[in-house]
């Protein structure tokens, strides 16, 4: 695949990214305004607000897979023993044990 230079990509997406950042900033301002000074979000909402902060922190890192990390942040956890928990252990088992696959 012919790849564009980093400079070209930045040029092409600069205004779009600026607009998206402004959108996020305005949403956070809106939440704060509605909450009033020193106001606290109730339990579940506070957790979700904290998740947004964590996502923003991921953006500040230098890693190569920020999109994947943000996806993981907003994902429910996977339990490798779920089949035992559900009582649905394999009938036509293949050679590899399911537990061994979790990295």
């Amino acid at each position, binding site marked *: *695949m*012919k*790849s*564009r230079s980093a400079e070209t990509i930045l040029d092409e997406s600069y205004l779009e990214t600026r607009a998206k950042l402004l959108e996020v900033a305005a949403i956070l301002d809106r939440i704060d305004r509605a909450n009033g000074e020193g106001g606290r979000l109730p339990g579940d909402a506070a957790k979700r607000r904290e998740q947004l902060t964590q996502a923003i922190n991921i953006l500040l890192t230098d890693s190569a*897979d920020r*999109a*994947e990390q943000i*996806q*993981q942040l*907003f*994902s*429910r*956890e*996977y*339990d*490798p023993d*779920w*089949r035992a928990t*559900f*009582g*649905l252990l*394999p009938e*036509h*088992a*293949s*050679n*590899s044990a*399911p537990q061994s*696959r979790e990295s």
Partner: protein
Amino acid sequence: MDFIDPHLHMVSRTTDDYETLARMGCVAISEPAFWAGFDRGSADGFRDYFEQLTAVEPKRAAQFGIQHHCWLCINAKEAENVSLSREVIAMIPEFLDRPGVLGIGEIGLNKNTKNEATVFLEHLDLAIEHDQLILIHTPHLEDKYQGTRMILDMLCDDSRINPDRVLVDHVEEHTIGEVLDRGFWAGMTLYPVTKCTPDRAADMIERFGGERLLANSAGDWGVSKPTAVPDLIYQMRRRGCDESLIRRVVHDNPSEFFAKSGKFAAPVR
């Protein structure tokens, strides 16, 4: 460019959409059986739906020179009702020999429950018993990662399943790697809000290459865009991607995968 949309719910779309798709180069569509927006009251409701998928839609598509194919199952949402699911699964073989049927799908998980997993496993038995291809729906948003891992467990724990005959759909950045690594085909769904944009899909193609990768609109009765695949073609061209890579993802890969059913040949102009 000629393209195939491998996941498009045309029963929910207008005839005008068929015409627009044809104008944009769509040569074939595959339509998985899915949730109608309400829970159906009986297995007969599904019988009528399968009739629509296998008899009515192919005729509607043919008016515009588009091939229409389909997949049959009870979707993951209604699979929460295990007894209804068993009735529907028992009826599906009546339809499997119809010309447009490519396999069993879109089966999968929705909220990752025990009932959904039970019905998923019974669909796998059905597919294996009748030597059918499988198309898989992975859940959305916070349920996607967990649900995809559970689905991959069920597929990989079953020695009868050949990954080369299974397409795992709605992959995103956190699920695509594992699906491809284990030898399955992967579908990226381009959707306005909850799924993946053409730009992010193009990123995944850049990162993973074009092998066993497909793109679809999953257009349905909700906010969606049936012409999303041409959006991806446009985006890839803007990036300077090779035409051969674009064609591979939007045409050759779906053709190759569908042909494994023995019932698909890509239209020749």
